[in-house]
């Protein structure tokens, strides 16, 4: 592996200056758990400068502004899993981050890196998609907000411009009658990339009988993590405990385009995708029903 110069900016302004100054000769590193293996395997060219985000501690904040939750890009998966705020008001994100890799990796790896790396298998992303998250991007020239859904353009491809970075990801805290869940199918219980992952968010009617609103998302079934919109349309307005299983399965299959890789064939992914979505929806409904009663939401 070639060597590079590591730059540790002392402030966010210096960080943006460095990013703009170094241009394509520079590259951001957060936890390094995607970037360094990519350097070693020569999947990513080693740049002259690697700009370390880890020194900008304000980018690691997890906080609440009224009903909005902000998770700094530098928050590690371990910090998210352990955050009472996330556990209480957006448990689905903690649930997803907890299923990433191993303790050692979760202590290093960040949610920003998980999103920015734009892998179809990024586990935090389906959870964030059903939370309808927004990204706050920043650069020397200012800030912009973008819906997470619009961020990915292909495997490893995003709309992020040169000199720009993800500062934080924000979403609404779950409220009464709302619930969400994440389920993952891997080849083993830990340190495993998803064969398929699925997340669901539901908002139930006050009597908990009808699904009033729903968002579904999946990982590893298309070039990017994605929302499963026709299945959402199918479930919206349907009975919470008695939706048409058969139809849901057919619809999910139509919304995804899985491929074959070393982890799975495309056919198997098609088979189990609907199972996972169904399980996520059921779990989300259960959580919505017990919301506010001490259960996870």
């Amino acid at each position, binding site marked *: *592996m*070639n*060597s590079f110069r590591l730059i540790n900016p002392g402030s966010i302004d210096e960080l943006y200056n460095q990013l703009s100054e170094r241009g394509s000769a520079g590259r951001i590193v957060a936890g390094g758990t995607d970037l360094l293996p990519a350097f070693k*395997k020569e999947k990513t060219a080693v740049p002259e400068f690697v700009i370390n985000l880890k020194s900008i501690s304000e980018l690691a904040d997890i906080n609440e502004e009224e009903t909005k939750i902000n998770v700094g890009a530098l928050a590690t998966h371990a910090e998210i899993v352990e955050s009472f705020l996330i556990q209480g008001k957006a448990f689905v994100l903690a649930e997803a981050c907890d299923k990433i890799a*191993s303790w050692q990796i979760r202590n290093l790896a960040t949610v920003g890196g998980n999103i920015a790396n734009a892998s179809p298998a990024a586990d935090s992303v389906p959870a964030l998609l059903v939370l309808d998250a927004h990204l706050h991007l920043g650069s020397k020239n200012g800030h912009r907000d973008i819906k997470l859904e619009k961020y990915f353009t292909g495997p490893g491809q995003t709309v992020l411009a040169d000199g720009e970075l993800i500062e934080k990801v924000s979403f609404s805290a779950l409220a009464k009658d709302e619930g969400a869940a994440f389920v993952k*199918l891997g*080849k*083993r*219980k*830990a*340190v*495993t*990339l998803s064969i398929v992952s699925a997340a669901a968010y539901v908002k139930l009617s006050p009597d908990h009988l009808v699904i009033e609103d729903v968002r579904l998302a999946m990982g590893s079934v298309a070039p990017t993590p994605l929302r499963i919109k026709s299945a959402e349309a199918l479930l919206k307005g349907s009975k919470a405990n008695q939706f048409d299983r058969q139809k849901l399965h057919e619809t999910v299959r139509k919304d995804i385009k899985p491929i074959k890789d*070393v*982890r*799975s*064939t495309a056919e*198997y992914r098609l*088979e*189990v995708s609907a*199972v*996972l979505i169904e399980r996520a929806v059921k779990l989300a409904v259960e959580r919505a029903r017990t919301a506010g009663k001490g259960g996870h939401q």
Partner: protein
Amino acid sequence: MQDKLKSIGKPSPKHDDLVKVSGRLNYAEDYSMPGMLYAKVLRSKYPAAKILSINTARAEALPGVKAVLTAKDVPYNNTITKFGQSKDVGGGFEALYRVLAEDKVRFTGEAVALVAAETLAQAEEAVKLIEVDYEPLPGVYNVEDAVQPDSYKVGEEDTNIIAHFKSHKGDVEKGFSEADVIVENTYRVPFVDHTYLEPESGTAWIDDQGVLTIRVSTQVIEHFRGVAKVLGLPENRVRVIGTMLGGGFGGKEDITVESFIALLAWKTGRPVKLTYTREESFLAHSKRHRYVMHYKIGAKKDGIITAIKAEILSDSGAYPYLSPWVLMYSTVCAAGPYSIDNVDVDCKSALTNNPFGSANRGFGSPQVNFACESIISELAEKIGITPLEIREKNCIRQGNVLAGGMKMDRYVALPDVGVQAWEAINEQPKLKPADESKKVGRGMAIGMMTYGRMTFLHDTSRSHIRVELDGSVTVRCGVPDLGGGQAASLCQIVAEELGVPLSKVRIYISDTALTPLAGTTTATRQLYMSGNATLKAARVLRERLLTRAAAELNVTAAELDIADEKIFVTAVPDRSLPLKQVILFCSGEGVELFHEAQFNAPFTDVPDLSNVQGQVHPDFTFGAHAAEVAVDTETGEVEVLNIVSCFDVGRVLNPLRCEGQMEGGSIYCMGYALTEEIILEDGITLNSSFTDYVIPTALDAPHVQSITLESKAGLGPYGAKGIGEPACNSIAPAIIDAIYDAVGVRIKDLPATPEKILAALKA
């Protein structure tokens, strides 16, 4: 004496446990030498190609590069593989060992050229600058194609078949005609990796006497002879110092980095270090062979098996290495630990352009055990008896003759091990999963596996013990320690025999110049072989000490015993002498306080390969596994909930180590059953990393209950048998049987991935 053992049978931690867990133990990669160069290997990117030319000029011109070697620079590039055996066993068993590819490459990852440079980065850069002009050849990737007469030829011979062994007994056709139920199936098992934590590593240098010295992670220090041959040096000018291994499992039984660093050190005169990356390790070292196994079995309505026929095809990959030896184990074990009148076993191994197969824990046994045990369980079900019943009705017992003609005149712990494993797993009622989609099932399998090498290799081991003047003891034995406690067990034997605490015994291992050669740490042989050599040496010294003490105490030596650093009259323990006192008497009077002993295994001739009969192995270890699994019927996922491992180990020297092997062995081949396989696409490995080659993690490993039976009927010290390899033998079929019990599908093609299970459920 057997009843009052002081050290044997006690759960004492190993002398190296603390240094290991505190990270202070030095492994091969941790050693460096002043002025050391770094090596890198250029590997073939094609599975089959002609090498038209190699241009090393640009690499040689790179600053820092000290040597670039190709086949033409290797004094003896083509030699014969040897594994420390005392006897030449010749053609069929000893095959080509080629250091660097010449003329054509046979597998992806084959070593083509070597570089040594001042820095690792320079070596890496130089390797990229070597220009190899290849002409890709078609190759053959499927062993069923490779055995066809018109197939692509992997090597220089006009057939790809490198071994063909048969064994038969009675008349199988008659046996099948007498059967009420017949089952016939084809089973497949994939290439799998050893996945040791420590990749291959070593450093070579020329010492001040001109001796080429290699410090390396290896299971076989006797490869110093092989390296001497490659360089054309006298054997006493090559020294191998083995380090503690970060795992071996058979993958460090072949030569790994030794010849490469030896050549580079010889050429440059400088120390040279080479450590493989994980990806390189996956490509460069051997695999457990892929097998295609066609089995047919017949039985009467009452469950008595009348005939078994097994046709076995092993994918040897690109070079033979230990394939014929592995195939011999399969031949002997193919019909399982059963007493069957009519048996026909036909085993072939053929070259392909896949990664090469060689030793991997179990050495040809787990493959055939999976097929044989699977078909026996299916047969039981067709007859309507339990998996345990069919085994009780047919398993061999003491006095029976194995399919291969060996009479079992020692104690055979069958069916006991099976009964105990099955009872233990059924002790608790089956769990009822909360999740409706999950179903729980239980299964079992039994097995036999040898310990000790094949008897026609004429295996030997040596050990040297010296009693020090202060009553401490020094042992020297050329045993490589793979982490299984091979060295520590020898210390326990010495402590026992000489009546000293374990803490007063120090051992030096694994050095071809300074420790007596003990043979390979393979074939589950070290406790048996080096244990016996050490026991023999210890007993000679013990006798000398007792004899001297007897004169002092006015009794005969036979009336004395040693314990707790005292020699005492057995009948009157108060009449004693401090051991140290006796040692000083001996020392002052010129009595030799050291001894080296050699232990020889039974020796036989090479068997008739067209009908392997009689003794091929010294003895067998018998064991059983039972497993409980939960299968998700909607995704096909399997969770192993419980494992029971039950073995007659003869005698437990140290319960911690013995159970460690039984637990480790269970998990090792749990991966074989469920997740592990080298995924190949026309000779290219698609999963050469721990991301994609999936072994169980701590979270996947269930509780393993180890039940040890102690028949004291083994050939090792104190009646011990071997447990290292047998421990992994029968877990895969037990898990597969449990999956069947849960959801009614039998997987015949390992690994039993969720995908295969789901497809079978939907079929």
